[in-house]
C-alpha cells in the first residue's frame, strides 16, 4: 500500500498489531513504511499506543532498495538497533541524519516531519532534537530527553478510536473561509488551522467575505474544536502578540504551542475519537506524549 493511501483505519490496525506483538513478548517493533506520510503514522501511533513500554520504530527509504545506493539497508539496521537495544519507550522515525551513509537519527514520532521530497535526510526533528543517533557501526548515541523503559515487561495498549470528521485547513492570501461552513454541514467536529506566522488567519481584511473570524466563531458556536498551528513549521504560535491573535484566541481558538500542524491534526482527531468536545479542547494544547516542548532551544532550527 502506498503511504499516501493509508488512512486512520490502517493506523488503527497497525497500533493493534504493534500492541499485540509487544504484549506477546517483543521487546521492540520496527515498521517499514512509505515515507510520504510516515510522520502522520508516527504521530498517530504515538497517541494510540498508550502505556507504551517498548521502542517502536518506523523506517523507510528515499532510494528504492533495488539499487545498490539505497538508504534502506542502513535505515533498517539502525532501526533494529533502536528496537532491540535501546531503552527508549517511544514511537519514532529512524532515517538518515545526513546525505552520507554514516549516521541515522531517531526522531520522536510527534516531532518528525518529511522536509524534502527526495533527499535521504528528509526527516527532521522540528522544534526538538533527535532522541538518538545510530552510527553505521551500530552504536547508539543518546542526545535528547526521552521516556525510558520501565523495569517491567514490554507492554502497550492500543486506543485506536479516531474521529475522521476533523479537517486540516491551510489559510493563505485570498483563501475562502466558507470552506468551514461546508465542513460543518458535513458534521465535522474539529479543525486545525494552519495559520500564517504566529497563528493568523485573515481577519481585519478590507475584502468582503475573506475574514475567517465569523466562520471560526460559528464553528466554535456549534461546539467544534478549533486549533491553531503555524504553517511556518518551525517555531511556536502565540495568542497575544498581535490583535488578530487576541481576537481569535478570545473567540475560543486553541493555540497549539510548538506542535506541528500534522501532529495537531492527528492529535485532535484522536482526542475527539476518545473524548467529548470539551475535554478534547482542554487536552489539545497540553502535552501528552512529547508533542509539545515548553522550551525551543537555539540549535533546534534547520542546521
Amino acid at each position, binding site marked *: 500500500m502506498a503511504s499516501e493511501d493509508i488512512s486512520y483505519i490502517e493506523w488503527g490496525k497497525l497500533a493493534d498489531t504493534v500492541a499485540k506483538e509487544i504484549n506477546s513478548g517483543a521487546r521492540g517493533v520496527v515498521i517499514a513504511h512509505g515515507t510520504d506520510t510516515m510522520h502522520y503514522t508516527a504521530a498517530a501511533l504515538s497517541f494510540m499506543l498508550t502505556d507504551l513500554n517498548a521502542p517502536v520504530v518506523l523506517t523507510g527509504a528515499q532510494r528504492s532498495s533495488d539499487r545498490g545506493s539505497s538508504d534502506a539497508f542502513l535505515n533498517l539496521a539502525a532501526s533494529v538497533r533502536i528496537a532491540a537495544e535501546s531503552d527508549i519507550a517511544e514511537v519514532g522515525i529512524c532515517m538518515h541524519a545526513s546525505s552520507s551513509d554514516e549516521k541515522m537519527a531517531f526522531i520522536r514520532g510527534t516531532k518528525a516531519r518529511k522536509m524534502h521530497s527526495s533527499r535521504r535526510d528528509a526527516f527532521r526533528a522540528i522544534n526538538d532534537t533527535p532522541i538518538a543517533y545510530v552510527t553505521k557501526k551500530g552504536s547508539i548515541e543518546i542526545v535528547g530527553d526521552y521516556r525510558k523503559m520501565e523495569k517491567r515487561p514490554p507492554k502497550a495498549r492500543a486506543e485506536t478510536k479516531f474521529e475522521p470528521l476533523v479537517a486540516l485547513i491551510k489559510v493563505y492570501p485570498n483563501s475562502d473561509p466558507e470552506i468551514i461552513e461546508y465542513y460543518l454541514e458535513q458534521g465535522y467536529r474539529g479543525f486545525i488551522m494552519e495559520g500564517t506566522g*504566529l497563528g493568523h488567519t485573515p481577519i481585519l481584511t478590507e475584502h468582503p467575505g475573506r475574514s475567517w473570524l465569523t466562520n471560526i466563531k460559528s464553528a466554535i458556536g456549534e461546539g467544534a474544536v478549533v486549533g491553531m498551528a503555524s504553517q511556518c513549521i518551525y*517555531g511556536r504560535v502565540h495568542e*497575544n502578540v498581535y490583535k488578530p491573535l487576541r481576537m481569535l484566541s478570545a473567540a475560543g481558538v486553541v493555540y497549539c504551542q510548538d506542535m506541528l500542524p500534522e501532529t495537531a491534526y492527528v492529535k485532535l482527531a484522536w482526542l475527539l475519537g476518545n473524548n467529548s468536545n470539551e475535554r478534547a479542547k482542554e487536552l489539545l494544547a497540553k502535552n501528552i506524549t512529547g508533542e509539545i516542548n515548553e522550551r*525551543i532551544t537555539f540549535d533546534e532550527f534547520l542546521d
Partner: protein
Amino acid sequence: MASEEEKRYKDIGFMCGLEIHQRLATAKKLFCDCPTRLKESSETMANIARYQRAVAGELGAIDVSAQFEELRNRKFVYNVDKTNSCLVEVDEEPPHGLNREALLTALAFASSMNMKIIDELQPMRKEVVDGSDPSAFQRTILIGIDGEIAVSGYKIKMPSLFLEEESCGIVSNTETESVYSTDRLGIPLVEIDTDPYIPTPAVAKEAALHIGTLIRTSGKVQRGIGTIRQDVNVSIRDGARVEIKGLQDVALIDKFIENEVIRQQKLLEIKDILILENAKVEEPREVTVIFRDTKAKVVRQQLDKSGVVLAFALKGFAGILGKEVNPGRRLGTEISDYAKMGNVNGIIHSDENLSAYGFSDGEMGELRKQLSMTQNDAFIIIAAKREYAEKAIKFAVGRAKHAMVGVPLETRATASSELCTTKFLRPLPSGSRMYPETDAKPIMITGDMQRYGMRQAPDIEKEKEIISKLVENRDVAAKLLTSPKLSLFKRLVEETSTDPKLIANVLLQKFTELRRNGMDVDSISEESLIDTFIAYHKGKITKQAIDEVLKHLAKKEGKVDDIIANNDLDRVKGEKLRKLIESMGTKAKQTDINLLRNEIMAKYRLKIDGGELNEMLKK
C-alpha cells in the same frame, strides 16, 4: 528628635533613595520555561552578534543614555547557553505567560512592606542600552505602590516594587564589542524602591539591611554572589542626582553615600572658582606635529601606530584639574573617565607631573603656544587612533564644560571598594525609556492572590523568634537575620540535623575568621557545606576538623570525602581510640591521666573528640 547628623544632612539639602534588586528562587524564569538554577559554568551552543539602535520611547523622545550608547556603535555578542536558555532569551520567540510563582512571591514582598497592590498589572518594556539584553529591553511589572517600613525610628516610604527580568551576565568587554552569556537572563528579580527622603547615609544603610533581611526571611530568594544588588541615588542642594549602581556589600553603603556627598560638594566648590575665574573651555585641535619626535612613551606608542594627538585649552583652569574630589580621584580623573568612553586609555592634563611622562620642555612650550595659553590656563591632551581620539576628546570637552555648571547627572559604578569611591558609567537615563510590553497580556490580581500575598508576607519578628529558639541566643539570631547566610543556615539545619548553634557559629564566626585569613569561604558550594556537616554529624570528623575541611574546600581541593581522606582527618573513635590510648600509655609509660590526655590531644587534636577521650580515660 532630629539628631545632630540628621540636621547636618538636612542643611546641605541631602536627598537619598535606594533601589534594591534581588533575584528570586523560582523554578522557572519570568517569561519562559527555562530553569533558573544556574550551572557553575555555562555551556555555549551558539554565538550570535547583534547591533542595537536607540528607539523612541512612548513619549516620542529618544533617551539620552540610549543615544549615548548608540554613539559607541558597539557589537554585542551573545553566548547562547544550552541549559538555561531557549529562543525567548535571544529574542527569537515571544514571551510565554508570566511565571505565577514569581508573581506570588512579589505579592508577598509587597504585602510585607504594607504596599497597595495594583489590581491590573501591565508588563512594560524598559529600554536597556548596554546590550545586556538581546531584545534591547527588560520586561518589568509594577506590583505594589505606597508602602512603608520602619527603620531605626524612621518611617521610610516605599513607593514601588517591580517584578523584572534579570539581564545577561557580561563575559568580556573590548574596545568595540561586549560579550554576554544568556544563562541568567530572564531570571525573575524584584526591584524594591524607597522614596528619596532617607535622612542620612547611616539610615540608608539600615534601610538596605532591613529590606534585605525582610526578603531573605521569605526563603524565596536566590543566594550567592551577584544575586542581590543595591543602587543608591544621592544628591545635595545645587548638586545633581547621581545613581551609584550595583553595590554588593550592604555594609559599605553609608561610606559610598558619604563620599558622593563630598564629591558633589567639591565639584560645586570647583564650579564657584571657575565662575570667578571666568573660565572657558576651548575647542580641541590636532597637535600631532609637536610630538613628532617625543620621548613620552604613552604618546610615542600611539604615534608609532599612526595615531594622532588632540588637545584643548581650559582657560582659567590652572590647578583645577588636579583638585581632589574624592580619595584618590581628581577632577582630571572624572574627565578621563568620560574620555575612556571613546576607547582611549585616558587623558594627560597639565596638573600632572609631565616630565615624568617624558615630555620635553620644548614640546610643552610649543603646546602652550599653539593653544594660546597663559599661566591661568590648563590643557588636556589625548593620543590615540584618530577615530577614537576624536570621539574621546568630544566626551572630555563636554565633561570639562560641565565643571562650570556643577554636578552632571550620572550613573556611576564602584571605582574602588576599599576607598568606597565611584566612577562615571554613563549619563543618567531620563524617564522616556518605558513603554508597554504588547506581547504579554495584562494580569488581573484576584482577591485570592491578594490574600495569598498577605498570608505569605515575610515577617522579621516572627523569623527572629524561630531563629532564637534554634540558636538559643537572641544576639546570634539577630546577626543571622541580617546575614546573607540566613537561608543557608536554615538549609543546613534542615538537611544535616547538626546542632544549629554549631552551624551558626561556623557561618558567622569561623567564616569571618577564615575570610580574614584570605580564605575564599564564600565560594564553597552549599552542597559541600552540607557534606561537611553530615560528616561531622555522623562522627566521621571531629568538631575541630570542620575548620580544616573548610580551609581545603576554600582552596577547591575536591570533595569533602576526598579532603578527609587526603588530609588524614578521619575521626579516631570507639575501639580504635581505646587502642590508641593503650599504646600511647604504654609507650610513654604514662600513668598520669591528665598528662596522657594532653599528649594525645597535642598529637591528634583534629582526629579525636575531647569529650570521648575524657570519657575513655576515666575508664
